[in-house]
């Protein structure tokens, strides 16, 4: 009995996987980024346009040999009242890489990001009083990370 159930279950899973592969499932499950995230990306782009240069540390390599793994760190522990930090890669399809809200943590975030090509990368820090600070750096990529 159990075996039968198991077989049924695995069959259903397999057909679901096939449906995803053929693009039959709802588009939101297959699309690159959710629309919510894309909207957020656009909002942040506007914020960056009228932001001031910040006084925090943004660590990233000048030349990234492998674009699929580019390590970078934002260290804004010298600033007070940091609400969120974000990574923004200008030439990627969805420029916003990630935004971290920090309700109860120090302003230190390190992660690894994919980059399709050589591009300007912006680190953004917003404070609790609504101000936005940025720091940009151009990172050269010798091998793309987003499949060409």
């Amino acid at each position, binding site marked *: 009995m159990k075996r039968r159930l198991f077989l049924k279950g695995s069959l259903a899973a397999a057909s679901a996987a096939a449906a995803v592969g053929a693009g039959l499932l709802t588009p939101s499950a297959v699309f690159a980024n959710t629309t919510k*995230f894309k909207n957020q990306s656009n909002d942040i782009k506007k914020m960056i346009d009228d932001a001031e240069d910040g006084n925090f540390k943004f660590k990233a390599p000048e030349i990234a040999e492998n674009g699929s793994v580019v390590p970078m760190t934002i260290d804004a522990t010298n600033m007070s009242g940091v609400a969120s930090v974000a990574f923004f890669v200008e030439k990627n399809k969805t420029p916003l890489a990630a935004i971290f809200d920090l309700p109860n943590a120090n302003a230190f975030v390190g992660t690894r990001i994919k980059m399709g090509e050589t591009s300007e990368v912006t680190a953004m820090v917003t404070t609790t009083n609504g101000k936005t600070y940025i720091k940009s750096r151009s990172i050269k990529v010798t091998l793309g990370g987003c499949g060409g």
Partner: protein
Amino acid sequence: MAKIKIKVKSRKNIITVRALIKHPMETGNRKDKGKLVPANHITDLLVTKNGEAAIKADIGSTISTNPFFQFKIPGVKGDAISVSFNDNHGKSLSTTKKSK
């Protein structure tokens, strides 16, 4: 498939959290043998300290495969740090560890 590995260490009342998540992070733009590979990536990440939210993150497919994150949270030895994520297929996973 997916897996979270975390290391938490406190020093001078600051806990350093290092999390390595095993996840394919497909962008949905990459092609394999002429066919688009469907997107499969983490959409949000939550780090809590003793059940209280410490970091909330919205993550796009731009973060690299098997994402690595490093955070600093004020706290002392013995605080329970938990890292959890949701991906675009609705899957979620969480891991909790006490700080050393």
